[in-house]
């Protein structure tokens, strides 16, 4: 690296955040007369910061969000299902039922939200009572000394 290349002007500071969501489909096979396909959501949050140094953090989560249940022999012709004219009228598309997979309970996130709410309520109550006491004390002082506000 030359002396010019080391100069801060040639290495501008940069920072970036990228939230990316993509959905993948996974075949789970045929069970009985049902063909199962899962939809899996993959979310990533990327944080990066850098100049001459570089730091990056990636947080990701992969979770199944739904199951598509397709019964054998339930394909329907595309032009019957859609109102607009199809370029391939004889094309057959599978008809499926969707079973949602509920998001798992996050007890610690709920705990954090509740604790913040309780702390905020306590702080608001304390500051309201303190303010009221100060106001009452000031009014009492004014009454005893006969001062006008």
């Amino acid at each position: 690296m030359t002396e010019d290349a080391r100069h801060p002007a040639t290495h501008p500071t940069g920072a970036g955040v990228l939230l990316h969501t993509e959905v993948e489909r996974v075949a789970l096979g045929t069970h009985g007369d049902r063909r199962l396909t899962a939809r899996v959501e993959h979310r990533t949050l990327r944080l990066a910061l850098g100049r001459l140094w570089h730091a990056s953090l990636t947080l990701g989560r992969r979770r199944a969000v739904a199951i598509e249940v397709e019964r054998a022999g339930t394909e329907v012709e595309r032009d019957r299902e859609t109102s607009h004219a199809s370029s391939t009228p004889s094309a057959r598309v599978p008809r499926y039922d969707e079973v949602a997979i509920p998001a798992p309970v996050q007890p610690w996130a709920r705990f954090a939200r509740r604790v913040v709410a309780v702390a905020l309520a306590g702080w608001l109550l304390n500051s309201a009572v303190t303010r009221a006491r100060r106001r009452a004390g000031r009014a009492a002082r004014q009454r005893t000394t006969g001062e006008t506000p």
Partner: protein
Amino acid sequence: MTNPTSEVAVDRIMNIPEHAGASMCFGEPVRAGDRTAIPVAEVSYTLGLGWGGGRDAETSGNGGGAGGAARTRAVAVIDVSPDAVRVIPIEDFTQIRLASIAFIGTTTALVARSLLKLVRG
């Protein structure tokens, strides 16, 4: 980052989760009679990386480090029976109980602190 080799290494490390397929969220189907159970898991991960180099001739040289963690937990079971396909959620009662105990303890401490402040003025 100036070294092309390190850039390739960083790119490879940061893309490890991309190479793992979505099928890792599902376990092997278990058959019992005419029913099938498919376990479903949630996979979460964190990857961190840092790299630094010297700015001038006296402090030249560079180095870096990387670390990561991954966690998998069961979230549901897909129950395929001749009549229907159902999803049975799995709740982690240990975590729920721990969070409840922590919430009760923290709330008691916060309320006691607020009351003491009110009493003392």
